[in-house]
């Protein structure tokens, strides 16, 4: 009994310190890292008091082992990117210094701002992937979500908490509804969702100018052509500066919503019946069917929920950052959502970290270009290489086996 109440206290303490750490860190108070570290230590003690056994060393070892391939992939990509820079006549040391200083220190708030929509789209792609579906058209759902959010944001005059809540839910549902077509076609005819969602993404992207012109972005009368009017001020997401004076004035609380949604998605996937069925369909449809799990229903659930999550990314950009809609509102967040989901092996919690890494690479790349004139598109290459090396896990075994074989062959030859 004693043990039980202790573990309860520990988990509550851990959650509180964790939230404090995340809030502070994402508002560019670097003291937040200490809080997060403290939360991790508390988590360790909680685990030990709840389950007993496992020494700190073994736990740390297991933790490091899961990071083995990602870290190796990132280091290898950095080296390869450096080689490319040397070949093309840029100094990699200068470039990387600026990249990391910019991404993780100087422009940290931009990294966070970049990461927020990526977390949503990443979760969307990851959730669909768990059901064995590839939601490659997250970009389109992003646009639907942002259009709906702008439309509502221009009109809803309720107290902020209510209207923001309504905007999030309704716009998310609109984006989910946009995915009904691919989902229904997948279930009824078997049309591949890669093609249908991709085509609908192009459709949504091309429809957005019509919406923008209809909501204030008239190129004939407006000084800012192709930009809608600003949404009403009561629909703005709160910013960190309201309660933390040192935070950047653009940094909004969307990151906290994103992290909360990621935890929620994790919970749905691994602790509820729906999540279990979705994963069962993704891993082995035939076995799932034999268990009486409806494949069609779960495909619908997965694709619609994926659409909902992508829509939230668009909402977040409108109510949090830009407060209006324009044609290039999405700087490829839908496409990059695929990368962060793949990189996190479709783990919702992992998506948070990969999104922040991606956001930091983008922010650092811009800082690097500003200060050193090295084109920030090198970041795109580094991203591609990181992805390839981490995704292709088997590559290490492949070359390992080849080397081993060669060694054995040589030994045989020597013996003969």
């Amino acid at each position, binding site marked *: 009994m004693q043990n039980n109440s202790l573990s309860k206290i520990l988990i509550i303490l851990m959650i509180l310190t964790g939230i404090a750490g995340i809030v502070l860190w994402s508002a560019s108070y670097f003291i937040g890292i200490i809080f997060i570290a403290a939360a991790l230590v508390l988590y360790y003690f909680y685990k030990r008091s709840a389950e007993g056994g496992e020494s700190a060393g073994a736990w740390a070892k297991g933790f490091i082992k899961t990071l083995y391939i990602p870290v190796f992939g990132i280091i290898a990509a950095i080296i390869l990117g450096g080689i490319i820079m040397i070949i093309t006549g840029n100094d990699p040391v200068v470039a990387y210094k600026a990249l990391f200083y910019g991404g993780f220190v100087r422009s940290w708030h931009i990294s966070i701002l970049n990461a927020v929509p990526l977390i949503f789209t990443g979760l969307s792609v990851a959730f669909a992937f768990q059901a064995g579906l590839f939601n490659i058209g997250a970009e389109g759902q992003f646009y639907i979500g942002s259009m709906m959010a702008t439309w509502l944001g221009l009109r809803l005059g309720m107290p902020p908490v209510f209207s923001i809540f309504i905007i999030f839910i309704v716009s998310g549902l609109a984006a989910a509804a946009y995915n009904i077509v691919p989902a229904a076609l997948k279930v009824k005819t078997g049309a591949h969702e890669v093609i249908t969602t991709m085509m609908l993404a*192009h459709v949504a992207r091309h429809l957005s100018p019509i919406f923008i012109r209809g909501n204030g972005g008239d190129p004939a009368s407006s000084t800012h052509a192709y930009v809608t009017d600003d949404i009403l001020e009561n629909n703005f997401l709160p910013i960190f500066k309201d309660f933390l004076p040192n935070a950047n004035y653009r940094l909004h609380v969307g990151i906290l919503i994103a992290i909360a949604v990621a935890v929620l998605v994790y919970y749905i996937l691994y602790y509820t019946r729906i999540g279990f069925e979705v994963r069962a369909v993704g891993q082995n449809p035939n076995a799932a069917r034999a268990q009486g799990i409806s494949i069609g229903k779960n495909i619908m659930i997965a694709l619609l929920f994926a659409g909902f999550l992508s829509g939230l990314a668009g909402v977040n950009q409108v109510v949090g950052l830009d407060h209006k809609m324009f044609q290039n509102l999405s700087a490829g967040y839908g496409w990059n959502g*695929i990368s962060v989901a793949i990189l996190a092996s479709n783990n919702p919690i992992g998506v948070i970290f990969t999104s922040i890494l991606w956001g930091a690479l983008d922010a650092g790349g811009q800082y690097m270009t500003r200060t050193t004139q090295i084109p920030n*598109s090198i970041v795109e290459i580094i991203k*591609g*290489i990181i992805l*390839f090396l981490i*995704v292709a896990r*088997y590559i290490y075994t*492949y070359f390992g086996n080849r080397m081993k074989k060669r060694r054995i062959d040589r030994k045989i030859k020597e013996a003969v």
Partner: protein
Amino acid sequence: MEVLAQIFNTELLVATIRLSTPITLAAVGATICERSGVVNIAMEGMMIVGAFTGLIGAMFTGDPWLGLLFAVLAGGVFSLLHAFATVSLHLEHVVSGAVLNILAFGIVRYMMVMIFGHPGTTDPIRFSLKNYQWAIPGLSKIPVLGPIFFNQTPIIYFSFLLIIFFTFFLKKTKLGLHIKAAGEHPLALETIGVSVYKMRYTGVFISGMMAGLAGAYLSIENAVSFTEGMSSGRGFIAMAAMISGGWTPIGAFIASLFFGFADALQVRLQVALELSIPEELFIILPYVLTVVAVAGLVRKSRAPKADGVDFMIERPE
């Protein structure tokens, strides 16, 4: 009536061929690739790589034919990454394809900034393959069919020849039959002593070269410069054409013609009905029709049995 005459004429059909050619080439390539059992959603990325390399080649050698060669080789070499990832590393095909699309975008953008100093559009080349438009004597005088099929630019003629070649290749040559077997029943193929890995590598390589050719068409025949995003989803429309065409080169060609027609019609409608309707409603037409076509035809066509199925075997060597 006047409006109709302005839209529906021989010009429309000529434009159909021109707009469908990149889709046709990519769709035929994708057909070979999927027949060998590898799903290739990296067609888009390979097209971009081919288009960019083709333009660079044409610009620095001054000869668009050499640019064409570069484009085909670049597409092929880039596709080998996909083959390596899916066949040798047993990676999920869709994931590898998505990653390669992202990588292609990054490489092209970086090279573009390094060479031209800015992303977006490259400088134009002075001499493109369009200058080699050739009216076949005699045949091009046939009314309607003449201007459509026999007064075109080089890559369009290549595409006609390649459709015939690959139909023959899949049906009659040993290599083609082996490739098909690798996509239908890989184990059986391995049993008779042919390497499934090699067949799949070949299939992917062919698709890469075809995508490179499609890219070259976009940048150095249909246009004189490379613009980021100029492939605008054609790699994916090509996959739709492949599925609607039932995984055969001829079928892929017919489906591509349909999508090309939608695109050509869309442009003409925009011009004919100007201002009354927003132009964007026309631009989306080909994309919507693609969804409709895939949904309507996917049931009637049968995918290769081992399409996208990983094959792993240990050989005593």
